[in-house]
């Protein structure tokens, strides 16, 4: 198929960017979206132009590197997939596709389609852990039975890949879904209860400090999340936060 791509080009963090138009031909339906960009880049290199830079790594939807706002949607039109798993069969011959970086104050553009998501790391550093030493001197794993439903729900929250689609989808650029997924993972496990109070207070404080917006319950984050992380996690975090604040 033949397509027209409008791609955000920006030399670095300090220069202004703009959308540039690139026609492209010979795209097949079973190519992934990133393989389509590979074809574009190979062509640009051969013509002596600079290839488009974008984050990507595992190309199987789990590392969370790839991002891209495609026709206004994080990870494009398909549901429950990352950009690397989005296939060109979702598009039609003659389509125009607008490709931009994830937009948020807390995610500054580094170059072209690459943004800085280190704010997410700092939220995790503020409390996204259980303070257990890694020396191996812990109790036998089966001495802590966990209700299967709680374990499954904890797992579901823990499958967040930290891609940032929730932030890019939100009109307030809120990181509530991301933060609440980690808070929930631990809140649902007996091992995680011990530090639950401090964890939620510290992680929320860091989230605010990074400049993410507030949550106004539009639910866009849940719809765009490639891993289907549930809004219930935000409700759980709000409850955790409230009870922690009362204790604090």
């Amino acid at each position: 198929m033949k397509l027209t791509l409008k791609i955000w080009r920006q030399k670095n963090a300090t220069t202004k960017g703009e959308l540039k138009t690139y026609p492209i031909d010979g795209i097949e339906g079973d190519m992934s979206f990133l393989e389509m960009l590979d074809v574009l880049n190979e062509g640009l290199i051969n013509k002596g132009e600079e290839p488009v830079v974008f984050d990507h790594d595992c190309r199987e939807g789990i590392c969370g590197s790839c991002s891209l706002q495609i026709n206004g949607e994080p990870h494009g039109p398909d549901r429950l997939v990352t950009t690397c798993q989005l296939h060109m069969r979702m598009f039609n011959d003659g389509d125009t596709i607008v490709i931009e970086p994830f937009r948020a104050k807390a995610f500054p553009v580094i170059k072209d389609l690459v943004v800085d998501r280190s704010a997410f790391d700092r939220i995790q550093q503020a409390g996204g852990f259980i303070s257990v030493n890694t020396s191996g001197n812990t109790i036998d794993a089966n001495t802590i039975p966990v209700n299967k439903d709680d374990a499954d729900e904890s797992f579901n929250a823990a499958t967040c890949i930290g891609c940032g689609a929730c932030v890019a989808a939100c009109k307030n650029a809120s990181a509530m879904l991301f933060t609440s997924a980690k808070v929930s993972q631990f809140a649902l496990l007996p091992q995680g209860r011990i530090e639950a109070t401090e964890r939620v207070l510290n992680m929320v404080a860091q989230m605010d400090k990074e400049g993410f917006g507030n949550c106004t319950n539009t639910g866009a984050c849940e719809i765009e999340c490639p891993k289907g992380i549930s809004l219930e996690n935000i409700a759980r975090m709000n409850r955790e936060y409230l009870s922690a604040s009362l204790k604090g």
Partner: protein
Amino acid sequence: MSKLDSKIPKGPLADKWTNHKNDINLVNPANKRNIDIIMVGTGLAGGSAAATLAELGYNVKTFCYQDSPRRAHSIAAQGGINAAKNYQGDGDSNYRLFYDTVKGGDYRSREGNVYRLAEVSANIIDQCVAQGVPFAREYGGYLDNRSFGGVLVSRTFYAKGQTGQQLLLGAYSAMNRQINRGKITPYNRHEMLDLVIVDGKARGIIARDLVTGKIERHSAHAVVIASGGYGNAFFLSTNAMGSNVTASWKIHKRGAYFANPCYTQIHPTCIPVSGDHQSKLTLMSESLRNDGRIWVPKNIADAEAIRQGKKKPNDLSAEERDYYLERRYPSFGNLVPRDVASRAAKERCDAGFGVNKTGQAVFLDFATAIERYGKEQAAMHGNHNPSKEEVIKLGKEVIENKYGNLFQMYEKIVDENPYETPMMIYPAVHYTMGGVWVDYNLQSTIPGCYVTGEANFSDHGANRLGASALMQGLADGYFVLPYTIGDYLSKDIKTGKIPTDSKEFDEAENKVRELLEKLINNKGTHSVDHFHKKLGHIMWNKCGMARNAKDLESAMAEIRMLREEFWKDVKVPGEMNEMNAELEKATRVADFLELGELFAKDALHRNESCGGHFREEYQTEEGEALRDDENFMYVAAWEYTGDPGNEVLHKEELEYENIEVKSRSYK
């Protein structure tokens, strides 16, 4: 020929590790504060080690090329992690895990290392549960297990099809705790481009900041390489796009021996190649072989009809299907080890029974399992006479609960629903058992330079069993390296900070600068990918699932020529002092082009078949791998001498005192 000292402790097998821990020197907590350690790579091996070393009190600097440690490719491991817990009461023990691993590796690994791995495996599970890793559980609240290939027990712990993700996020959270305490300084989006050796000891690295392009000097008292394997030498593999051999190869060129480079794991269950545009291959977890049955049509005419779309797989009755693994290996069936399953798939496809357009695919079918689980569920709900539809509906729910994410991934890529029609799969490059040679302490032949996880060669011999990579990565990082590195560092308590203004740092930095300038200024006519794909082609066709002397000789010559062509004609756009993805690729492919030749050389010299290394000249009448224990029961450790085609071979003889070496059978 120099003798390689593996430093395996004396004494009975089961006591070696405990005795060794009692014998080695310790560093007191106050002195640890004055010691710096560099960790290159933040996957399971690097992330876990960084966290533990920081917790012990050392100052750790971590380096990863990704924008966050959480994105290291360990994250993509799907099926599970082995541990000799014997929670299922099915006869598991440290010895049995040790035995399975040595046998699975086709008697080409070290007894002492493998036993230690089995010994610490149970601890890993305890540790991870304490960290909040949400493993799968049974209804009673206890941990669930499943089976993996090459074993007769259920010892694999898992978190759906995302076990690697959950374990890596566990290690990442342990790292975050130490970053928060100021004990780890993370250098993300940084790539190590050389090792600095001062007075014979590893004392630092040269790294490039991938955002600004700045070349940086970092010093430390020890350097740990945990940068993963080199499967991307094949271009198409299940590795991440950025996975590379550069850190390992740079230390190799500085004096670390590289061991068994030809031992590569071709994983039997991957989504087949769909076209020339393909950038990577996607794995379908080995755990699927717990419930999936592998088959091709019995009659070649049916295979042709399926290839042409005239017949559908479900049109064929059970009698018209050849469940070839169950036929050839009745006792292990679909759960034979990966090397065996891959070769069997290739054999059927080469014989004309392949089932997709290219003839390079076999079926992985869940219909039997869906029916079995459906009946079980119906009975559990008191329905003892369910309809066929009810059975299938309930059965699909069980399968979805176990493998949902894998089925979804398959459907998105292939555009077919695997609940309704069998998956099509084919082998693909997945893991490299070979790697930097290390002794029992995980130290390379360069003092102070340690190598952990997939980057080293140590525990899997010629073939790795499923769910053992996660085990090894975490064992090395949480429980082995933190002890053994202390013994070395105990001599450094009075050294003080290592200065970075020495002539050794000057030399290394200049070398890196020259390399990058050369690439940028080359202004050739072809992109980096052009050369990488060509290399991948040679590797897959001549150094892949079946190898022979003639092909390997020509592979060496072709890779050498390709390397010369690369340096004459590669085109790297952009500048050095900016984010430049093409430049990153170019430095990595330059190293693959050297490693590839050594890979072929190693495969050529090993005149036997063992594990993942299959030489067509050495096979039994039934087509099984034929080892030559008399002449090849050794680790081949290669010393760089300025030219990858002319490296010098050093042999570490393997001794088996606790296990009887016999021919490996899964029949």
